[in-house]
């Protein structure tokens, strides 16, 4: 399957440039996404579905926030640090954002270097291949399944908490949610599954040493971000915030905070594991450029999610 997907579509007609290419892709009686590899398409589908989940988190947070009857805590005060005898608002969050943006930059460079040097035409087996007998694509699929499973568990836990914590009778879902909406969501999901059958990428290659260097920088950045988040959590917990209550106001605030940042943090952690494996394999000369690119896509996605959490949770 991987061989089929990675084969160049030799013999097919050249695709027109720009917007005409979109029409040509769907109208030319052949596969769409001809120049996208199976792995890249898979990663984009995962990112899309993961974005849906984060959208749900952010929207449920906004719903909780806008519907609560007690004042919402001031993020500038809650997330301030005591430095040099005075409170500096949002300083830790600003540092975390900076670190994450920087690591996204180094990751993008790692992808680029990977592209420039990698001359291995044949598929190289992963470290994990030896352990699990899985191909890179299959491993990616498993990473997807595991992380998505974690996310959905979290989503259900969050729902359970909100339901448990609600003082009012929990409304019947049929009245709260629009069933056509659920059906449409399902439709979108199926549509995204249909895009699975898309194919083919051409790998340009890159400088392995520099790729490794920037991968390590990315890992360091990610670890630093995670460390900051661990500190922030400790800070907040020491001030008495719990899932069920917090000293600043609406009890839902704690839930929204822990669940949103917790899941983002678990994404960062997953990304670090992927990056570490990618770095080790790059050092061994075993990572095809595509492998680095998959890890990169995931990492940028973690950054992308943070942009939203940062704005909607911390700033608004």
């Amino acid at each position, binding site marked *: 399957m991987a061989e089929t997907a990675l084969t160049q579509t030799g013999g097919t007609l050249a*695709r027109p440039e*720009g917007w005409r*290419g*979109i029409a040509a*892709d*769907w109208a030319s009686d052949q596969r*769409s*996404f*001809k120049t*996208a590899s199976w792995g890249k*398409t898979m990663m*984009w589908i995962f*990112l*899309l579905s993961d974005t*849906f989940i984060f*959208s749900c988190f952010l*929207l449920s947070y*906004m*719903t909780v926030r*806008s*519907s609560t*009857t*007690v*004042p919402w805590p001031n993020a*500038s005060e809650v997330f301030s640090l005591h430095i040099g005898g005075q409170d500096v*608002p*949002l300083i830790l969050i*600003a540092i975390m*954002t900076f670190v994450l*943006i*920087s690591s*996204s*930059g180094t*990751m*993008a*460079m790692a992808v*680029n270097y990977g*592209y*420039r040097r990698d001359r291995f035409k044949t598929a190289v087996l992963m470290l994990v291949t030896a352990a699990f007998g899985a191909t890179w694509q299959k491993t990616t699929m498993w990473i997807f399944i595991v992380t998505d499973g974690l996310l959905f568990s979290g989503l259900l836990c969050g729902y359970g908490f909100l339901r448990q914590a609600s003082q009012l009778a929990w409304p019947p879902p049929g009245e*709260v*949610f*629009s069933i056509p*909406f659920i059906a*449409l*969501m399902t439709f*979108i999901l199926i*549509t*995204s599954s249909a895009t699975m059958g898309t194919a083919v990428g051409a790998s*340009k290659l890159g400088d392995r040493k520099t790729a490794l260097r920037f991968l390590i920088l990315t890992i360091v950045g990610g670890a630093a971000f995670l460390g900051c988040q661990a500190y922030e959590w400790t800070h907040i917990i020491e001030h008495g915030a719990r899932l069920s209550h917090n000293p600043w106001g609406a009890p839902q605030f704690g839930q929204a905070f822990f669940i949103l940042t917790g899941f983002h943090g678990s994404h960062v952690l997953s990304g670090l594991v992927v990056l570490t494996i990618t770095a080790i394999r790059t050092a061994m000369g075993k990572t095809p450029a595509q492998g680095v690119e998959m890890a*990169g*896509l995931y990492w*940028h996605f973690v*950054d*992308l999610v943070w*942009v*939203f959490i*940062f*704005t909607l949770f911390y*700033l*608004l």
Partner: protein
Amino acid sequence: MTDEAKAHGPYRIYWVTWGILLIITVAMLAAEKFHFPRLFLVLFLVVFMLVKATMIGGNFMHLRYEQRNLAFIVAAGLLVTSAILFSFITPESLSVRARRSEPAAAPAAPAHHP
């Protein structure tokens, strides 16, 4: 990677993007300091949040160099989903708020700060 990007050095785009993201982030943090009207602040932050997201998607995740089709699918999926979520959840959350505000006028109702 386009020929144009190669001509300007392969990594320049990442660091230019990084710089712009940094500037926007600083601007967003600074906006908090000024006492803008709430609506303006929200609009400002949301617009720049979307600009940042677009830059990360386009430049870091290479969406602008990908086949248009791939970028189109991702964008359309996100737009449709956010439109649906927004249009269904916003009226609901506003009506919940309105419903909670009503009993606050009654003497037995719990404390309420709009």
